[in-house]
């Protein structure tokens, strides 16, 4: 019996392979998950976009749950998600802070004036160093950070209604308890 089964080994290997490929079809190979989930959000101290004389440090935000949204005036996809952020800000559920990534402050201010400003404050990351610390590789990206300063979720790419309602807001509500 084992002798006959030997001939079926290639078929068995193939079936396993197809199973993996099938699952793989549902994945996006370009997405790079963040290794910072459940790790402390990297510290920063940057000047604010609207009031350049003031700075904002990551430590200032301890005690609240907050979102960090990485955006830029040159980023096309950011315009797609921006209305959602504006709407979210109006609901006053969770403060949204912006990281103006590799941008000229003037361009950033002008862009917010044109498209609306949902951010409690935006900070300017001129050379992208804070972005690198956060593992930013594409814009826009959004982080959910809890009261103790731990990153709990990262959204790669523009926010969508489903992600917001289905993943982010429930998580925020849970963290706020």
């Amino acid at each position, binding site marked *: 019996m084992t*002798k*006959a089964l030997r*001939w*079926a080994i*290639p*078929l068995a290997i*193939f*079936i396993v*392979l*197809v199973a*993996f*490929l*099938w*699952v*793989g*079809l*549902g*994945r*996006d*190979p*370009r*997405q*790079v*998950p963040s290794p910072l989930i459940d790790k402390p959000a990297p510290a920063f101290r940057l000047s604010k976009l609207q009031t350049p004389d003031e700075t904002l440090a990551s430590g200032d935000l301890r005690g609240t749950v907050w979102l960090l949204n990485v955006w830029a005036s040159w980023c096309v996809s950011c315009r797609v998600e921006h209305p959602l952020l504006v709407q979210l800000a109006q609901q006053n559920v969770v403060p949204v802070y912006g990281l103006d990534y590799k941008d000229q402050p003037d361009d950033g201010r002008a862009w917010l004036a044109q498209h609306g400003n949902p951010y409690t404050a935006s900070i300017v990351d001129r050379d992208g160093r804070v972005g690198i610390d956060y593992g930013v590789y594409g814009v826009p990206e959004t982080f959910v950070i809890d009261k103790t300063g731990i990153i709990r979720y990262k959204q790669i790419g523009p926010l969508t209604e489903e992600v917001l309602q289905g993943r982010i807001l429930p998580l925020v509500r849970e963290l706020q308890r």
Partner: protein
Amino acid sequence: MIPEIGHFALILALLVAIAQSAVPLVGAAMGEPRLMAVARPAGQLQFLLVVVAFACLAASFVGNDFSVQNVAANSNSELPLRYRFAATWGSHEGSLLLWALMLSGWTCAVTLFSRHLPPVFLARVIAVMGLISVGFMLFVLLTSNPFERLVPPAAEGRDLNPLLQDPGMVIHPPMLYMGYVGFSVAFAFAIAALLGGRLDATWARWSRPWTTVAWAFLTIGIALGSGWAYYTLGWGGWWFWDPVENASFMPWLTGTALIHSLAVTEKRGAFKSWTVLLAIVAFSLSLLGTFLVRSGVLTSVHAFATDPARGVFILTFLAIVVGGSLALFAYRAGKVGLGGVFGVVSRESALLANNILLIVAMASVLLGTLYPLFLDALNLGKISVGPPYFDAVFYPLLAPAVFLMGIGPLARWSQASLPTLWTRLRWAFGVAVVAALLLPFTLGRWSPLIAAGLFLALWIATSSVVNLRDRLASSHQTGLLAKLAANSPSYYGMLLAHLGVAVFIIGVTLVKGYEVEQDVRLDVGQSVPVGGYEFRFLGVQPGPGPNYRAVIGTVEVRKDGRLIQTLHPEKRIYNASGQTMTIAAIAVGIGGDRYVSLGEPLAADNLGGAWAVRIYLKPFIDWIWGGAFLMAIGGLLAVSDRRYRIAMRRRDASLAAGSAAAAAD
């Protein structure tokens, strides 16, 4: 009108392919000659129809018909004629049509050159190829139709990707597909043998030339792709272990194992089920490659724009074709019967070891390519597997196989003697070792890896010389020419192909061991010494092109003060897409290439000032592709052996009559 004709021809071709598969299969099962006889004309008709379809698409491209969606997306009226033609296969849809064309072409070839095959067997072969054609044409017609119209028509096309506007685009895909698709013939032969329940040396003799020709084309196709990447991508690399490169390399490794395994089955009747499995695996890897490139499952510079629906279709097709074949194999292979008998030291055992090493190497490449996907599918995170892995794993696996190349051809069939082999080969071995140890000193620096690579290459060469010398010495002919003529083309084909491997190894070893790269800022008039040469940058000039604007640099190359050549690297901006391309300037030489490409302009006034220039010295790099071409020519030479041709058909005809009678029950 023309696109509609093409579309219609493709639909007709699908219908013919369905008939081509179903009718002969039923006929073979029932032993009905009239049904089986449908196979050959159906195969030929299918080919004609696909040619019409392909010609219609090509005509739309050449004629700048921007009412066809595919043409508007991939071409442009400023595009030179040869690239408008090549753009026919520049997209996912078009390249699938090329696949279908190649497949029907190979089918037609089988119908024309297989008069000596028994009708039952031939009917099954053509039917199996028809089934694959059905799959591909359904795929094209249902998910990837190149003839779709764009309403309203575009005024101008979006242009072919500048990276593809190159002679490489005209020849690399057709050659590659000839190889990829050509393995379908070996596959069909294997399935037909399993269906018929008979597998013998004659089957291997029929299968061998088809397989070797496909393998030769695949060799050429891969070599062309590598050479094209080298001069087009601007940084002198020639192999990246990119998933799509691996997707073509795995069938090649399997195909190499297959042609050697077929040799054993033909001559000794051994390895029968193993050969059949290899034939199935080789073509399965071709199909897997098609899946990987088009499904979006892996990131690759070669990947076409992807669509999940297409991925699902190909995966289903793959599951049916390969799963079905392996199931048939599981069911029937045991009944095929055990082959010949041979000793531990024999040519058979050497070839078996060669096969196992090649397949382990192929499996390792597969493992490395798919491992990121495995981990991701299991939610274990995302990793990357790149050249450091493949280099570390592949070369140690192939080194013993290469070493065996020196021993196998000299070992006797069935039972060889190690002491005899050692006596015959010890001088070849010694010379190779000594030369390999000494040569690196004359070339620059010594390193164990360089010496090892050189040893393997020289070992192939010296053992081949010994092989030929012994052949001539034991020949019954008188006179050198007569002795040489007494050997068959397939013998010289083997020698040439093996020498090709040696040449290839020299190229790889010496390039990796001695290449030099310099990334420098050069002002106009400034020189930099690299290797034994001096490179002097003389600034850039604007230059127009047919569908681009270019900035052309001038770099003088001197050696010992004497001007050897002037190189003109370019930076092009293509009109339609705005894309920038770096065109390297390469001085090709047998001893090595001098390779210069422009980086970025560094001065504020942009073009007139200093530039970042990349200079490479690539010793013996053209031996890599030269070796590959020698391998392919060796393969084609072997196929020209007359035992595959008419004189032998008389004997095969009587064998065919015998096996037809036997298969009728």
